[in-house]
């Protein structure tokens, strides 16, 4: 539905803003554009006037001028002050963009060479498509399976690289229902240009209807629980009393004392590293070289599911998924059209 608009209309449509942050950043954008236009006009007109006014005329000698420290200091300090305004304004918005609110809905994204795999808390999965309710802050926790990708939604003015080996987060609050472009903006190989998709913002009611069904294999937490038992994690990580390995209940987002004296926060990245390369950080009071490396045996989605399950073990933290708060909604999975990969793109 995007393509059939006249070129001029879509020219402005594409620059629309559909997130709270987006409008905040756009104000700063127009301030910078104003400064650029003013300075450019000043310089171009200045050159034209000086060139014309002081052009070579017979009998007129150029008067030699040494220079003036006062002017020099003036046109160093003044531009720097204007730049400081840009710096402060930009840094403030950037900090806001980097700190997701506590009540954000969490969605997990896995970047893989040339597709985006999206996992919702209720277990539903999609490829190259993201559905979010309007007005609800959404936090994306992103991982990459191979090279560096970059999850970018121009209409929301959000973008963050997805670096393999760790988690990157990104958050936004959609304000306008509609369909917006999703791009990969870090070069990642042949089909880099086809690693695109659409973000659909739905009204609250439509979204509830759309996401009601949940995933075939149960919610993310249930899938994590199955993995937790299948891979034998439960044999050492006993949930309620001290086994040979650290207790995972009430662990998420709590400080952890390490064997070498450092304390780190048990955030997503810590949990991921401790699953894949457990001996990178040994918890104080525990022996190294007990838990095997799972690097290469678990896919990124499985790690996400395990972490979702571990998070569900610490109900205190609000960011755990809705799924785990209420009892899992058991509805016979309605026959839902299998999400073909490029349903929307095929409309073009």
């Amino acid at each position, binding site marked *: 539905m995007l393509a059939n608009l006249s070129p001029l209309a879509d020219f402005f449509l594409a620059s629309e803003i559909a997130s709270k942050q987006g409008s905040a950043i756009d104000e700063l954008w127009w301030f910078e554009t104003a400064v650029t236009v003013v300075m450019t006009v000043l310089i171009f007109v200045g050159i034209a006037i000086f060139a014309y006014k002081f052009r070579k005329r017979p009998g007129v000698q150029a008067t030699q001028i040494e220079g003036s420290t006062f002017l020099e200091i003036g046109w160093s300090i003044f531009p720097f002050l204007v730049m400081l305004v840009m710096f402060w304004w930009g840094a403030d918005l950037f900090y806001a963009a980097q700190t997701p609110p506590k009540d954000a809905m969490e969605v997990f994204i896995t970047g893989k060479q040339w597709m985006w795999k999206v996992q919702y808390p209720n277990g539903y999965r999609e490829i190259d498509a993201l559905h979010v309710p309007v007005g609800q802050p959404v936090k994306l926790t992103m991982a990459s399976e191979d090279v560096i990708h970059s999850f970018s939604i121009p209409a929301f003015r959000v973008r963050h690289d997805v670096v393999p080996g760790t988690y990157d987060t990104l958050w936004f609050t959609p304000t306008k229902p509609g369909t917006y472009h999703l791009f990969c903006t870090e070069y990642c190989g042949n089909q880099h240009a086809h690693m695109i998709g659409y973000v659909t913002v739905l009204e609250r009611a439509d979204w509830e209807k759309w996401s009601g069904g949940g995933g075939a294999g149960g919610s993310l937490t249930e899938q994590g629980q199955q993995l937790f038992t299948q891979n034998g994690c439960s044999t050492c990580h006993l949930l309620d009393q001290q086994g040979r390995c650290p207790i995972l209940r009430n662990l998420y987002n709590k400080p952890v004392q390490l064997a070498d004296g450092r304390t780190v926060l048990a955030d997503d990245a810590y949990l991921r590293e401790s699953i894949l390369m457990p001996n990178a950080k*040994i918890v104080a009071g525990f022996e190294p070289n007990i838990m095997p490396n799972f690097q290469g045996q678990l896919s990124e989605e499985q790690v996400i599911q395990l972490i979702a399950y571990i998070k569900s073990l610490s109900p205190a933290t609000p960011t755990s998924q809705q799924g785990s708060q209420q009892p899992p909604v058991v509805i016979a999975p309605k026959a839902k059209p299998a999400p073909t990969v490029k349903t929307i793109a095929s409309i073009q």
Partner: protein
Amino acid sequence: MADTLVAPHEAEHDPHLRHHFANADQQLDSATLGMWTFLITEVLFFGGMFTAYVIYRSLYHDAFAATSMVMNVPLGGINTGVLICSSLSMALAVRAAQLGQRKAQIISLLLTMFFGVVFLGVKAYEYHEKYIEHLIPGPNFQFPEAPQYFHNAQILFFLYFAMTGMHAVHMIIGLGLLTFLLIGAYRSKYGPTYFTPVEMIGLYWHFVDVVWIFLFPLLYLIGHTK
């Protein structure tokens, strides 16, 4: 400033004075400054690897300690001693060139090259030792001593081979330059009025020794007793 381009009498009997320099001092000063500028590029060239080392040592503290246990510390110490001796003989060679003592130049240059070759020999032995124990990062890397650091240890061994390998390449280039000096000394080219090449290659050799003085504790000593 000498009014004519080059003081005529000096140009004839000093064949080593390049045409665009006014006098020998300016030539030596320029050469020394040029060499030090080149050494800055070498400092930053090795600096890239040292930065990576600093970052990964702080990130994977224990894995690096485990890898130091595998290193042959006595051999590393001997190698450091060998390189320090080669630095001494190189300094003596430069001194002999400044005084124009042909025999002393030849002996000290030969001594420097001997120590250099010994160092490379020991290095080759260590590499062979690592090859046998499958410690070269890549598909057939094995690390039985501390299997839990299997992944992170490969970073340290990669850095080990990158740093000591690049250092060895610089040693080989240094040996090539020393042979060039040996031929010149043999032909008694270097004397009190012209010893610039000896001093420049001496600076280069001392720099290679300086790099090893840092490499030895970082790769061999830190944490090897845990």
